[in-house]
């Protein structure tokens, strides 16, 4: 059963909204990599108004972004949080992601500003660059005046591999439970309440194919802080640095059966 309807609509009208809520209300072009702030976003003046900016997130300002010196992928498309029960056991999380997944979405790549309808909710995809090794979903949701507890976040990115790369591993950390797919294949699952520890969950040995490779994640948070981090490791468990992320490369990604 699918709760999220495949109702991606035109992003044209949504893009300005995304820019406003994620970056700033100043109207200035944001820096692609501002220094991370340590405090929470500014408190809202009205209950449902955007609270921005998210201190550790910025709107992408370049076509591509290389993974950082420790190999972390810092550019993602994130869907606004979906309200869920917030149960974190293996059975509950697996049932949740099957129920809430978007048809054909494990390899499809949304565009910044695309919206989907989930029940009576309308949720928007946002392209973000993180200034840290991790993506702070609490910052993301709080800045949007969205709930941060008992929520499901979908995240997508596309790694444009320069060549076929066998024997690599996707390595992630998440707060809290999460399930991860590479090119449509589930490769990592972490359950129960947990913190986002670097390389907490590591996939079996995989092959990155030449060109775009779609990574999709579902992160479920019950309460408190919520974030994730992701990178690839080589055959010696060392981080692969310099991998290129380009969110428009997903259009040519071929879904696997």
């Amino acid at each position, binding site marked *: 059963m699918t709760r999220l309807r495949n109702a991606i609509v035109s992003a044209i009208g949504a893009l300005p909204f995304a820019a406003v809520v994620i970056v700033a209300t100043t109207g200035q072009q944001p820096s692609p990599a501002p220094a991370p702030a340590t405090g929470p976003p500014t408190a809202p003046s009205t209950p449902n108004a955007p609270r921005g900016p998210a201190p550790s997130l910025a709107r992408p300002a370049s076509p591509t972004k290389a993974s950082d010196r420790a190999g972390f992928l810092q550019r993602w498309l994130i869907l606004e949080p979906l309200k869920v029960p917030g149960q974190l056991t293996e059975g509950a999380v697996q049932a949740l992601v099957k129920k809430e997944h978007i048809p054909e979405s494990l390899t499809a790549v949304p565009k910044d500003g695309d919206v989907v309808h989930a029940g009576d909710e309308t949720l928007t995809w946002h392209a973000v660059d993180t200034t840290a090794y991790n993506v702070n979903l609490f910052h993301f949701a709080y800045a949007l005046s969205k709930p941060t507890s008992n929520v499901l976040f979908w995240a997508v990115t596309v790694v444009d591999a320069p060549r076929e790369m066998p024997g690599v591993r996707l390595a992630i950390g998440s707060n809290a439970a999460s399930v991860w797919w590479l090119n449509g294949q589930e490769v990592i699952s972490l359950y129960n309440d947990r913190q986002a520890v670097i*390389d907490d*969950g590591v996939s079996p040995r995989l092959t990155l194919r030449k060109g775009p490779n779609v990574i999709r994640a579902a992160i479920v948070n019950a309460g408190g802080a919520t974030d994730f981090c992701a990178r690839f490791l080589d055959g010696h468990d060392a981080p692969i640095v310099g991998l290129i992320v380009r969110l428009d490369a997903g259009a040519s990604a071929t879904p696997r059966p």
Partner: protein
Amino acid sequence: MTWHPRLAAAALLLLVAPLSALDGEPGMHDPSTVIQADGRFYVYATGNGLPAFVSDDGWTWRRTGGVMQAVPGGRPGPDVLARGGNNTWAPDIMRVGDRYYLYYSAPGPQPKSAIGLLIGKTLDPASPDYKWEDAGPVVWSDGVEDSNAIDPGVFRDPGNGSLWLTYGSYFGYIRLVELDPKTGKRLHPERAPINVSINSEASIMIFRDGWYYLLVTHGSCCQGGNSSYNIRMGRSRKVTGPFLDNMDVDMLQGGGKLFAGSSGRHIGPGHFGLLALGEGVEKFSLHYESDLDRGGISVLDIRPLLWRDGWPVAGDNLTAGTYEIESARTGTALEMAVQGAPVGGARRGPGGPPPGQGPPQGAPPGTPPGAPPAPRPPIPAQEADQVGANWPGGAAGVRLAPYMLQAQQKWAITPVAGAGGYPGSPYFKITVAGTDRALAATAEAELTVLPAFNGGPEQLWRVDQLTDGTYRLMPKGVPGSKDALALSAVGSSTPTLAAFTPAGDRQRWLIRTP
């Protein structure tokens, strides 16, 4: 001091022990250092003709006759017989260049004794080059001097390549002489030997981190379960000593820190020999005067060698039991990837209303408000049969998780008979405790838990204790691979298999009793 009836004891044990297919701990006395050559393990011992043993894996041993069968004349040469006698005891062996130097005791009426040298090109009796050349006596004692020239221990100084021999047995001193690596004989025969210990025998040296360690055997031998044999040691910054124990007592004055004493079902350990297996894995050979599980005969054993605070420590081979297997890298525990259940079921916290507002939670009727809470009954350990009904019937994944005393986190490690082994131990199967679900390697060099153990090499595990006390776990075989791979923590929650690298903690595991 009475002289030890070593030959009689050795002859007796050879009658008791089978002559082939010695499945670990073969019966022998005064074993040499276990040496590796051409993919096999060899060891030599006290007895007529110097009994020789070979093993393909370090666990299953078989006799290969006696060394003297390959010596011209079938006995020690006349110079050795003249300096000592016709017995052949307590050998030691080392490869130097492209030859093997085998030193052996040739006692006469002790303490008149000699140590002879045999030189060979191969240890394989099936080789056409198999022959031992008698190189004559190396050191000897005249029966009056403070020395009994038996029990050779040969040592190669890794710092400068110099070669040394320690020897002696109770009467007088343990002595040290330098050898010529080109000949195996004394480099400076005109110099007096150096006394390094007293009241001991079976001496040998090892080196680590700038320290020379002298290991000797104290106590009495050759009396079965009444033997007080124990291995002791001292250390020095110089190869020539003085060797002091942990209390700074010189071994020349009887000092010696205990390295190995009687334990378990074994009485009287003696005759230390280093077996360095590479990649930071060190073991040591020894014999026990009495193995209670084998009717009290003397047997060979190979055990892990650990290091702690600058001293070697005698480790123990893993025995059957139920264990937590914890990654030294992550502190998380190996578990079958199934949804766990809290031990004792889901429970509330201490609970109960605040003091004075009602009876404690679970208190009998009539308990007044504010009374101390009733003691709760103990919660039994969680077993597989309590929670396994929800586990998948087929193969399951393997992961790492915080250890919570749950059934899928407890592993039965059980030796498997007839499957071979490795130095000191047979292979083990590792199953979820209370089940037959077996940890196994996959063709992708990952891990799985199979529904049942079937004895395949991917389900047999080698468990070596490393020098820091942690363990390395390796499947006997990985489907489709010739590589030797070890259990590895690639992240906090993910185990895998990878080539072993001694540096770092990713392939080091703690094996704890739950």
